[in-house]
């Protein structure tokens, strides 16, 4: 049956092919024309004598695709063959266009080459390098079905001898007509199977962007295919890029299938605090500005829009305790979201802070406000005392951008802020534009931003033995990614905007900037110098504001403001 057919083809081939490889033709061939019978069934014509090499290449392929590469792929969705043809064509034309040969397959699988010349074969090493996704199909589905899909086109190899010894490229004749060959340009076979991970990484990014573009154009079918392809590409990647890609792919998939993520329950804030310097930078720089604004005051009041675990305040309280002339009376009003289990988390934090204050000898008072949105709070609730009695500071770390999901909310809050009569307002926000009206722009910005963040996390990973914080931080960032990409309307709360945009907004709301001094800069630089792996972090001063970035990319920005327009002194 099949074997007979193959054998016949084999004899045809050997008779018509010129002695390109004399060595091989003179080898004595066992039974079925030297072909391994089992692989024949899959459509591969491999000489039994080459089996050892083939096995080695297969092992390398598996290794390269990741330890659980096979099982990962076994979980992939099975393609509908009829949908694949267009996809294959685009993939193959992409591959062939990278070849040096200039002989490219256009649309068809049926390409036969002229009699002579450098015809190419699918060498296993080539397969692995360029056709990563092709060979993955080996595991996809039943092998017999694969043959039905591919029609022996991709996998049919007419001649013998995967010429692994031939370093100059593969020159083989094939019989015209009966076999259809995919044209793969003859790259010089590499002795080791290397997936060019940088190239694969770039392809990953391009596929992600192509998928986002498809979503932008509402071409969900293409987007669906692309997002699955990303899944395959990701399997062969490791490191920060792979993690980011997984989160983005998952977010895209949720957008495509309209499965919106539920509210996440666990608070991962502390893990993010521990594993990288962003929050510490935010706290230290904001505290420095507040400390300077509080100089000489005997009673102070801090209104914190982002209390969380209260990690910002111990350092400020300590600095106040050691200040010349002794500490002022310190009042803290903390605002936070309602807890799913209805515990009063704010009070717990207040209680711990009170214990600390007692220890270091600072008079302390705490009040907590639970609110779904900052816009629900107005100054009247907060017991603002007259300015000659008490100096007020307002602090917001990574909270203001959420207000942009509801129209008018941010303006309302900025007005309330003015009613609180603060001496200083400190704002820390992510430095990126994730609130563009066009989805694709948001996507691209977010991709670059979070890739940089994950890179910086990865460098911290080298020095930490406890990886839990790191992993949880990645989940924390992953949630943000999901929100930016998959959500819309009032659900999309991670509406980050750049410092420039915030400056405009604050100016038009009637605030003027307060320059963060050199002390803040020095302290921030020193703090970062302490971080192992801190070579990559950079502190930059930007017209009175401080930015923390990774290498050349700024990631968060601290700015300080006071009410009153610029003209007033």
């Amino acid at each position, binding site marked *: 049956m099949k074997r007979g057919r193959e054998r016949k083809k084999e004899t045809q081939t050997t008779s018509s092919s010129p002695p390109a490889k004399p060595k091989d033709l003179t080898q004595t061939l066992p039974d079925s024309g030297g072909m391994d019978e089992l692989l024949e069934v899959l459509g591969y014509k491999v000489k039994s004598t080459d089996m050892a090499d083939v096995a080695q290449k297969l092992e390398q392929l598996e290794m390269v695709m990741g330890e659980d590469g096979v099982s990962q792929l076994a979980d992939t969705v099975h393609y509908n063959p009829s949908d694949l043809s267009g996809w294959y064509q685009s993939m193959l034309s992409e591959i062939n266009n990278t070849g040096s040969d200039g002989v490219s397959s256009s649309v068809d699988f049926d390409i036969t080459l002229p009699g002579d010349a450098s015809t190419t074969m699918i060498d296993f090493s080539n397969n692995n390098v360029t056709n990563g996704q092709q060979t993955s199909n080996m595991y996809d589905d039943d092998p017999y079905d694969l043959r039905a899909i591919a029609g022996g086109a991709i996998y049919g190899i007419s001649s013998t001898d995967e010429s692994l010894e031939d370093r100059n490229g593969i020159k083989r004749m094939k019989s015209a007509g009966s076999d259809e060959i995919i044209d793969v340009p003859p790259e010089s076979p590499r002795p080791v199977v290397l997936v060019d991970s940088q190239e694969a990484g770039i392809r990953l990014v391009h596929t992600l962007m192509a998928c986002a573009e498809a979503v932008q154009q509402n071409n969900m079918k293409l987007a669906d295919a692309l997002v699955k392809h990303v899944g395959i590409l990701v399997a062969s990647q490791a490191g920060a890029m792979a993690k980011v890609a997984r989160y983005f792919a998952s977010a895209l998939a949720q957008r495509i299938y309209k499965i919106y993520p539920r509210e996440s329950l666990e608070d991962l804030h502390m893990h993010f*605090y*521990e594993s990288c*310097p962003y929050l510490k930078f935010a706290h*230290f720089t904001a505290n420095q500005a507040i400390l300077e604004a509080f100089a000489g005051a005997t009673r102070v009041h801090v209104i914190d829009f982002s209390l969380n*675990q*209260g*990690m910002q305040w*111990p*350092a400020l*309280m*300590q*600095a106040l*305790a*050691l200040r*010349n002339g*002794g500490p002022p009376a310190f009042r803290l009003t903390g605002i936070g979201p309602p807890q799913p289990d209805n515990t009063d988390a704010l009070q717990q934090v207040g209680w*711990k*802070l009170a*214990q*600390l204050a007692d*220890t*270091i*000898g600072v008079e302390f008072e705490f009040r907590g406000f639970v609110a779904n949105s900052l816009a629900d709070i107005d100054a009247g609730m907060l017991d603002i005392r007259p300015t000659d009695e008490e100096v007020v500071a307002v602090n917001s770390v990574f909270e203001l951008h959420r207000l942009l999901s509801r129209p008018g909310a941010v303006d309302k809050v900025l007005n309330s802020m003015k009613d609180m009569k603060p001496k200083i307002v400190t704002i820390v926000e992510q430095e990126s534009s994730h609130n563009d009206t066009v989805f694709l722009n948001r996507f691209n910005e977010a991709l670059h931003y979070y890739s940089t963040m994950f890179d910086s996390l990865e*460098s*911290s990973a*080298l*020095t*930490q*033995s*406890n990886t839990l*914080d790191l992993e949880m931080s990645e989940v924390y960032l992953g949630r943000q990614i999901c929100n930016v990409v998959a959500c819309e309307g009032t659900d999309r709360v991670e509406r980050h905007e750049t410092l420039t945009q915030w400056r405009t907004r604050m100016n038009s709301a009637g605030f003027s900037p307060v320059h963060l001094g050199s*002390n803040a800069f*020095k*302290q921030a630089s*020193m*703090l970062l*110098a*302490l*971080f*192992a*792996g*801190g*070579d990559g972090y950079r502190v930059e001063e930007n017209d009175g504001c401080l930015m923390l970035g990774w290498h050349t990319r700024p990631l968060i920005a601290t700015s300080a403001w006071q009410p009153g327009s610029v003209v007033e002194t």
Partner: protein
Amino acid sequence: MLHTHNNILERETKREKHNISINDHNDILIEVLQRLDGRSLAAAACVCKKWCSIVRNDALWEHLCFRQLSVPPSVGVRSVVLALGGYRRLYLMCVRPVVSRLKKRRSNGGHTEVVRRLWNRNEVELSLSLFCVEYYERLLLGDGGAVGGGESAAKSLRFLCKTVNV
């Protein structure tokens, strides 16, 4: 046997007449210990019980923390530091890693490095702030004895304990 014992006794009485034992003079001992670096101090604590009790005195560590300051720290620092866990802990958790980390960075930047350099106010302030954050974190985590708790740092300072990857 008795003969050698007598010899030893003779030798010892001779020594007593001519030598001074440092253990008899605490103030001299303290003066000497004050000039040691942290590591030597810790080693000194292992010599004998007397030395151990002297070294455990927080005043020695206070001296160690701040003796290289160009300007002495302000008055209120001591009560705060003692309340947060003491100078020995401050040295162990914050001062030593901060100084060594910053020293490494400076020498990698190509500046010639003096082993004992003066460290400035900013570094002191930063160390104190980190020390306070660490105390608070132990409070948050609800350690049974948050005050003067175990020797291991709360998580927020772990980044100081890792070697610099330069």
